[in-house]
């Protein structure tokens, strides 16, 4: 079941990217997205654990770049959510491979897919709402947010160094 959803997620992620880029006249990227999607599927089959994070990075980066070059937000959000799902399911599938034959794998798959499905739907909806509902932020609030982001980043780097 996880594998089917993984394939669907990869198709959604890279398909949305390809569609978004293609419809805006950037057809030179489309074949690369199809190729990367195929490599991700192949990588999963061949057990390349390192490829999933790279693929997620590519999907999110491409979505962000797509937004920068004014490609439709809906497709980019769709791509980001698809990439996130595929990355999660690839990791989950790898964790499931450690399960003993007697473990309740089907139950765990069901619960995981339900949870990640809720996250994806809610995330996508929130993103769309945030895009539609536009609020003008005063300069001080933006500065405050930047400071908060920098503090968060510092915390993250500290954690990374500890690890």
């Amino acid at each position: 079941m996880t594998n089917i959803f993984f394939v669907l997620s990869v198709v959604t992620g890279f398909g949305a990217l390809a569609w978004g880029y293609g419809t805006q006249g950037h057809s030179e990227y489309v074949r690369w997205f199809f190729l990367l999607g195929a490599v991700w599927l192949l990588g999963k089959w061949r057990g390349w654990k390192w490829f999933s994070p790279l693929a997620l990075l590519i999907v999110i980066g491409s979505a962000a770049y797509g937004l920068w070059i004014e490609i439709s937000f809906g497709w980019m959000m769709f791509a980001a959510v698809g990439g996130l799902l595929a990355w999660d399911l690839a990791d989950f599938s790898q964790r499931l491979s450690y399960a003993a034959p007697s473990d309740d794998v089907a139950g765990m798959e069901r619960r995981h897919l339900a949870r990640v499905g809720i996250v994806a739907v809610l995330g996508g909806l929130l993103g769309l709402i945030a895009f539609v509902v536009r609020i003008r932020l005063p300069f001080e609030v933006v500065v405050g947010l930047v400071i908060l982001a920098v503090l968060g980043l510092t915390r993250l780097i500290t954690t990374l160094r500890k690890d």
Partner: protein
Amino acid sequence: MQRTLFLSLITYVLLLAGLATLRGDLLALCLPLILYLAFGYLRAPEELDLEMDRRIELERTVLNTPVTITLTITNHGADLEELFLDDTLPSGLTLHSGSTCSLVTLAMGASHTWTYTVSGPRGGYTFGTLKAQATDHLAVAGRELRLEAQGQLFIYPLVTRLRQVVIRPRRTRVYAGNIPARAGGPGIEFFGVRAYSVGDPPRSINWRASARHVDELYANEFQQERVADVAIVLDGRWRTNEFSHGHSLFEYSVQAAASLADAFLAQGNRVGMLVYSIYLNWVLPAYGKVQREKILQALARARPGGSDVFAGLQHIPTRLFPPHSQIVLVSPLNEDDLSPLIQLRAHGYQVLTVAPDPVSFELSFLPKQKEVDLAARVVRMERALLLRKLQRAGVQVLDWDITHPFDQVVQRELSRVPVWLQMHGSLK
């Protein structure tokens, strides 16, 4: 949690990019990622409170017998969405069936049991800790715990039942056994004739001797049979056991030592074991089944090794062995071992050397060439000379060609006392 840090990093980069460029759509793109992380942290597992129980089907087994390990884990803490359990196998053991890992959802108070089977070569294996890693379903936040679940498994060497191993130590112990004690008394073997004394059973009267003397009666005396002290020395030196391409005679030596120890203990003797390798491992002499277990455990753990100190047999600590007792050395032998063995003999020990034949062993995996055959002939002659010198010094030698079963060789060579040993043993 590498994946959480990775996702956080992407989220931060997007956030910073959105804030720096004042693009709301970039910030909106972060929302699924933030939600993913938030969901994970919300369902992060609490402090782990797990109890672990390990059951090993057999604590002692023999080679190539699969042993089932059953692990039961009980959750005394809060519900755990995903609990990954990873049991570490002691090095040397191989997984026969099942899995050492398990992935479960464990509710509060619930238990999970899983089994796997292992097998492995001879050895003593200690099971240690089990890694328990609990995460939420998204594996964003996790907690790890190492649970102590001790267990021991001994895989004993092959023990061949030996019918009879005849030894003649110069001194025996006081308890009745199988070994002629060179003293008159109750027994089976004829020992001598002495003057009849009151209380002797009439059937012990030697009528033929008595007929020659008018006034006196003579009675037959039998040899007492007692138990003896036996020290088995297992030679684990690399220089005698290891050959090219990783071939080793040590397993054969261990098998011989185990079989001999079993046979001597079964005869009621007091047996000790010394493993002479990178260090000395001495199992104090004792009787019975408990001692058999101790010796087999020592043999299970025995490993060949090299040490400058124990390079030669001259460092065998003779003080460990009772005076005039029987020493059984299990060693392929080399030319330097002649004088230490003669010295042992000079100290009054009765020495039996069981020598797995290294020449035929090495020849079995060498190519059949003229040069090899010639070299083998030379080495065989050298070895025959060494063994003959040992026999001349009063050391009993069992040259074991490992292509023949050990019990058959022992049956042929050690089931009766050789004539030369009867001479040496009784005269000295």
